[in-house]
């Protein structure tokens, strides 16, 4: 494996490699290979195409470490590493600062330090293996442990031999994003919750085996006769074990039922608690008085199956729980601050209002600040979804979370993080979460009238038998209560949800919320964000209008040679184009364009006014709705180049499919240009709104919700996070901002919008299965209750009937876990 070597295809074999690459996805991250890229790496016996130098660097590092079997083991594609990603230790020196280090690490008794990290980009168990393996090989690292479920890494290391910055560099070099993990309390809480759930399940399981054993003896005794002293003994020990199980393991049912009851809502936990509680108390009564029947085995089995169903359902959902991503995680931790005459990097939390900070080109603005020197452009898509940067000069305010695109800026900090616009965004997210309308769950709606029915029937039974045979009345009423025990009914939904979540996971969709599938199956209103969701966030060249004798090819070569010197989003459209050779003295004019010299001639590319200053005869831009860039020489306009958003290839089919499924599809975008309208037209959408701020999007969704609609929202960016948290159902597309993914109910792991339709189909199917389950469970109870009321059902038959009906419900739910062959997805097995 270690022989894997890097190979960039030789020029001679380019065409072959190209045609093959065009049909292939990047071996590392799975995104389509852009035309003109010819990168590959020899992994696992074959040449593997790579989509960008970043992916190749990561893959090469993995191979060089001899860990390339990772690629056969993984079950999902890796995340595309960031463009300027590098395992450069110096970038992380800031974390070596004692004060910063304290916040996410601790010293254990042996003098070793344990540091906690939050990991971005880990998607399967193989990733944990890769990270653990490469970290433990570093000298000084004692142990490394990744918790996949919580995307968390803990590393024990000897501070004498290795610094925490080197650990950061190593993890980031592997293509994962490590951040200090600071919200310790929340993490502890989650770990505690999942442990106590498991403890309850284990205790219920072991108790079930014990009580079951005694129950067999008791049932056999009922049939062939048993000495009353032995029966007493077996009943007493059953009582002991069952009571422990009920008190220890069933507690959450009682607590939840009670909490909802005092808030005057009826949930499934109420009939469950009633059944467990009544059967348990009646059995205790029977044991103490030595009369009647005991139902300890039913009580314990019921508890176990319910806990199991819920445990499995939660486990399917909680995979990759990352709720603790916060808006401020998008900010850099190190900030260059002026101290006396020099710039020093200090942790962001130590920056004060009034400090002068330096924001290098390409970096994220760490804190709201007022520009004091320099001019540049900032991309504010975090707030408005618009990728066209805003030009800023001295005196303008730049906001935390925006990206400084052009030149480095000096700025004076104007407020603390708490008062920044980004913190405001985070507050909107929290507000959205709190305001999300609660949907009455199917199971709970059934529960409310089920309780009423069984209580009425039990009372009626008692009244009737009280007239006929008063001494039997109590026992027959109890057997009615036990037989009506809603075990199958209570299992009906968690079993179906767990099964469907598993199937979706294999399709590349993660479910993160409890009610998401149910809400989705009822949703009829689908809202898309534009930039990054329906379009990929980059521009492409749509058309070239030549104004001179230059051919289109020549124009593009000159343009590409100029644009290669810019970081402006527009320049992305010219990447991968052949460049004219010999362009020099390129200078950048903020908010205008670029100028350069080629074979003695001065060329300019950029805005209309910028080009017109040297070429007066430049005609107006064509009237087609595109983003037009002019190219000219002195006194000689050369061309207009039209750029547009690149619509995802599957966007049209997804929108059509959604409409065919009966959705009202809508487009909401923060982009204020008329691109939004164009796209709506192109996709055949009649509803759209452009230029919306995150709060306006939220208001729009709220209005829809107030009119009774169940709203599904698909988004990707930081600016979408608040509205995603508010919508009834939300999807985050592959590569979405962490904050957006953390708010979404569904996270798409694959770059394919059609998955939304797959999820919808599964949600409908899941709802059907849930209804089937519920009707079966109710049907069973309805048939059995009259028999019990007439006194015909012995306890063992009740127990068998209950188990059989639960089993049927589980088996029916398992049908959901089938994944159709066409949507099944497994990468990295070529």
């Amino acid at each position, binding site marked *: *494996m*270690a*022989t894997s*070597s890097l*190979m960039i295809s030789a020029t001679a074999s380019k065409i072959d490699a190209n045609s093959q690459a065009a049909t292939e996805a990047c071996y590392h991250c799975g995104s389509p290979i852009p035309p003109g890229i010819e990168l590959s790496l*020899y992994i696992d*016996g074959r*040449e593997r195409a790579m989509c960008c130098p970043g992916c190749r660097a990561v893959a090469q590092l993995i191979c060089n470490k*001899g860990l390339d*079997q990772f690629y056969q*083991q993984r079950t999902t594609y890796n995340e595309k590493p960031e463009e300027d990603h590098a395992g450069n230790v110096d970038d992380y020196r800031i974390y070596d600062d004692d004060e910063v280090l304290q916040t996410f690490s601790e010293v254990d008794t042996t003098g070793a330090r344990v540091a906690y990290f939050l990991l971005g980009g880990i998607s*399967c*168990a*193989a990733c*944990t*293996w890769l990270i653990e*393996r490469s970290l433990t090989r570093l000298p000084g690292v004692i142990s490394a442990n*990744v*918790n*996949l*479920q*919580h995307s968390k890494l803990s590393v024990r290391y000897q501070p004498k031999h290795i610094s925490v910055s080197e650990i950061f560099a190593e993890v980031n070099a592997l293509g994962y994003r490590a951040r200090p993990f600071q919200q310790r309390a929340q993490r502890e809480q989650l*770990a505690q919750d*999942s*442990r106590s759930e*498991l*403890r309850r399940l*284990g*205790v219920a399981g*072991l*108790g079930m085996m*014990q009580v079951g*054993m*005694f129950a067999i003896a008791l049932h056999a005794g009922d049939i062939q006769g048993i*000495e009353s002293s*032995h029966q007493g*003994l*077996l009943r007493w*020990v059953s009582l*002991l*074990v069952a009571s422990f199980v009920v008190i220890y393991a069933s507690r959450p049912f009682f607590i939840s039922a009670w909490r909802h009851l005092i808030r005057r809502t009826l949930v499934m936990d109420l009939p469950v608690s009633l059944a467990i509680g009544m059967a348990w108390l009646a059995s205790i009564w029977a044991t103490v008085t030595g009369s009647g029947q005991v139902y300890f085995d039913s009580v314990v089995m019921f508890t176990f199956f319910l806990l199991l169903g819920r445990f499995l359902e939660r*486990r399917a959902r909680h*995979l990759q729980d990352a709720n603790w991503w916060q808006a401020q995680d998008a900010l850099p931790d190190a900030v260059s601050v002026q101290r006396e005459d020099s710039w020093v990097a200090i942790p962001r939390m130590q920056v004060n209002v009034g400090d002068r900070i330096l924001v290098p080109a390409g970096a994220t603005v760490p804190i709201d600040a007022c520009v004091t020197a320099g001019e540049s452009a900032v991309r504010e898509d975090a707030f408005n979804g618009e990728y066209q940067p805003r030009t800023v000069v001295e005196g303008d305010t730049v906001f935390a979370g925006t990206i400084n695109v052009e030149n480095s800026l000096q700025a004076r900090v104007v407020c603390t993080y708490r008062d920044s616009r980004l913190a405001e965004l985070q507050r909107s997210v929290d507000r959205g979460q709190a305001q999300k309308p609660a949907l009455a769950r199917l199971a709970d709606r059934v529960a409310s009238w089920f309780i009423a029915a069984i209580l009425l029937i039990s009372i009626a039974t008692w009244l009737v038998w009280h007239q006929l045979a008063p001494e039997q009345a109590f026992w027959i009423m109890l057997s009615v209560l036990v037989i009506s025990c809603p075990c199958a009914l209570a299992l009906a939904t968690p079993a179906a949800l767990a099964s469907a979540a598993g199937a979706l996971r294999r399709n590349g969709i993660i479910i993160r919320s409890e009610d998401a599938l149910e809400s989705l199956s009822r949703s009829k209103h689908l809202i898309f964000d534009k930039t990054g969701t329906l379009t990929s966030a980059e521009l492409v060249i749509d058309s070239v209008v030549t104004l001179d004798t230059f051919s289109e090819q020549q124009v593009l070569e000159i343009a590409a040679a100029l644009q290669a010197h810019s970081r402006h989003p527009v320049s992305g459209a010219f990447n991968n184009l052949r460049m004219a050779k010999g362009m020099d003295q390129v200078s950048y004019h903020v908010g205008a364009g670029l100028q350069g010299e080629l074979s003695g001639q001065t060329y300019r590319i950029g805005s209309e006014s910028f080009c017109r200053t040297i070429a007066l005869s430049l005609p107006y831009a064509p009237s087609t709705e595109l983003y037009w860039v002019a190219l000219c020489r002195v006194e000689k306009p050369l061309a207009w180049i039209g750029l547009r958003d690149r619509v995802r290839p599957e966007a049209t089919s997804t929108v059509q499919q959604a409409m065919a499924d009966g959705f009202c599809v809508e487009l909401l975008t923060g982009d204020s240009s008329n691109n939004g309208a164009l796209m709506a037209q192109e996709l055949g959408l009649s509803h759209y709104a452009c230029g919306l701020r995150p709060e306006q999007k939220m208001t729009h969704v709220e209005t829809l919700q107030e009119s009774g609609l169940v709203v599904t929202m698909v988004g990707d960016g930081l600016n979408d996070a608040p509205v995603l948290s508010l919508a009834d159902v939300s999807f985050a597309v592959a590569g979405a901002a962490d904050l957006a993914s953390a708010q979404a109910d569904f996270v798409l792991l694959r770059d394919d919008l059609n998955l939304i339709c797959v999820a919808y189909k599964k949600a409908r199917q899941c709802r059907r299965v849930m209804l089937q389950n519920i009707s079966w469970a109710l049907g069973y109870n309805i048939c059995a209750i009259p028999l019990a009321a007439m006194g015909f059902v012995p306890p063992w038959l009740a127990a068998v009937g209950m188990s059989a009906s639960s089993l049927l419900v589980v088996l029916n739910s398992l049908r959901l876990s089938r994944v159709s062959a066409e949507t099944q997805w497994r990468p990295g097995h070529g």
Partner: protein
Amino acid sequence: MDSLYLLVPIALVFCAITIKLLLWAINNGQYDDMDKEAWRILADEETPSESEQPSSRPGPP
């Protein structure tokens, strides 16, 4: 059948010990990440390094 009076309590003691063990294992964090552990027992062990076992794999074409 009087042995029941001895055997049943013994069974209970065993049950208590098992529960105790299980709770210890859970509190010890052994069940914290079931996905990873489930995957790990099936994953191949690390391949021997180059010096121990020269690879016979063909180089890139």
